[in-house]
């Protein structure tokens, strides 16, 4: 993975499929059984080199809380991938940045369901802030903006 490639990926429209980087990245998604945008997000990840095992659960808030996601920064689903938690509709380039950089954090989250995010319809209307969180009680920090 070259820096130039990462830059190119960043610049691409988020829905554009990327060629598989290397091996498929396995992920488990916990989602509400009645939320359809999560499935669209899973399909988006699969177009981008992931294999997503979707698990419908009723206690998503318990799972995301146990995973360390701050209560006020929850996304609409919780993804477990390669030792990290990715909560919400985080663009794939930022997920890959996380898996490449491997910082000492528990995971990242894009809170809520912003319009235009992968899996959601509509036009992107604002800057998204993706936060990094840990389980050691420290305040979340900004991991990326988009």
């Amino acid at each position, binding site marked *: 993975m070259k820096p130039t490639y990462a830059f190119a990926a960043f610049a691409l429209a988020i829905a554009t499929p990327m060629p598989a980087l290397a091996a498929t990245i396995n992920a488990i998604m916990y989602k509400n*059984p*009645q*939320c359809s945008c999560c499935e669209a997000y899973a399909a988006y990840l699969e177009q981008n080199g992931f294999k997503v095992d979707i698990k419908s659960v*009723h206690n998503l*808030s*318990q799972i995301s809380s146990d995973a360390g996601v701050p209560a006020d920064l929850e996304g609409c689903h919780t993804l477990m991938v390669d030792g990290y938690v990715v909560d919400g509709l985080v663009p794939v380039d930022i997920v890959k940045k996380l898996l490449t950089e491997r910082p000492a954090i528990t995971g990242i989250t894009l809170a*809520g369901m912003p319009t235009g995010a992968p899996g959601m319809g509509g036009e992107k209307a604002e800057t998204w802030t993706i936060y990094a969180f840990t389980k050691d009680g420290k305040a979340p920090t900004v991991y990326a903006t988009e």
Partner: protein
Amino acid sequence: MNSDFHHLISRRGFLVAAAGVAASASMRPVRASAMAERRIGVAPSQARFTGPDGPHTPVWTYDRTVPGPALRLLQREPIRIVVDNRLDEDTTVHWHGIRLPNAMDGVPGLTQPPIKPGESFVYEFTPPDAGTFWYHPHADSLVQLGRGLAGALIVEETEPVAVDRDLLWLLQDWRLAKDGQIAAGFGNMMDAAMSGRVGNVVTINGTVPVDQSVKAGARVRLRLANASLARIMALRFEGHRPVVVAIDGQPCDPHEPEDGRLVLAPAMRIDIMLDMQGDPGKRYAVIDDFYDGLAYTLTTLAYDEAPPLRAHPLDAPVGLPRNPLPEPDLVRAERQEIVLQGGMMGGGKLAGVGGMMGMAAHGMNGGAAWAINDMSMTGDGHAGMAPQFTLKRGTTCHLTMRNETAWWHPMHIHGFSMSVLSRNGSPVPHRQWQDTVLMAPKDTIECAFVADNPGDWMLHCHVADHQMAGLMTVFRVT
């Protein structure tokens, strides 16, 4: 089995005795001439959902049991119920589905002052309708219901119904943590803006169900009541053909449900007649398959080995006598419409809520995630809630409810039962009357009722998280 009223007659006082045995008029007690009285204490206690050897779970209870005692009242007989609050917070009791005076409806601030800790409130009413109803708090609803405060309220028909057994399944859904305690996190924003706090343990009459022992050939009236915070159920009785005879306490034309599935949303009741046509010694699963990919066996009907009670199903008709509901005058009806808005994937109808724009910035806990006609009334009810519309007493209200959200909502009207006219333009058959109407995403429902009872009345979603987060309104009958 505490759901089987045959076994309770000698043990409880007048009200339970008054339950009688449905098929046996000789066992019905003589009616008391003075007003019957009952006292209920609201207090913390402990429950053991998995039986006498299971872990203790701290719960909140009516009379120290979960669910609360099944109150059996008599149609058209006045009742006085004294409620003593021994919680550390305010409470009220809402007699769900009973058409009663507004001041007895149990909405804090709106119809009565809340019952403060250590205080009592006297509820008095005369149930006009026979059927299956229930009672629960209307204060701190999400937490109080979620900690166990609910009980069945059964109003007996004046003439007994011909069945072999009269059973109640009061269904509750609990979100328990690994240690068996009720999980924290009431009011979580994802629960509030999605499907509510659905749990992980379902109980029937307060215990995780084991087999239900049944006899071949018997006719059972089974009263299903969903007292869950948020879990919608779709029950299938393997090998059986249940006939729906009442919905929300109100008799309908007897019918088999579509696809054999009984869809029971929070706060709904369905009475079914179940002819036990299975084979002696066999077992039949009762399956809840409402949520895709999350079907489970709720319980199992276990036939004993005895030969069938009778060779053919009972001849007696299964239909129940109708209740004295005023017939809507649709020609002269006043039309009203409410639109349900908001929630996750809500499409931006509600600034800051629909589509969840900027949700993180506001923080959602305790805030509004939903609205009715662009207004979010949050919480449990309070003084000074402005009515969405006002009806002159005696008017027929033709009410259209449109669900613009991506989620399911059981909409509950206080004080009235509504004749359900149509769903998405198709007439609703079986002459159904309901106080809690389940709306699928994007559904439009038309219903009608005669506004014959003055007061300010609630109309809200009975997914408790949704109600608390704004899916509530008030209308006035003058």
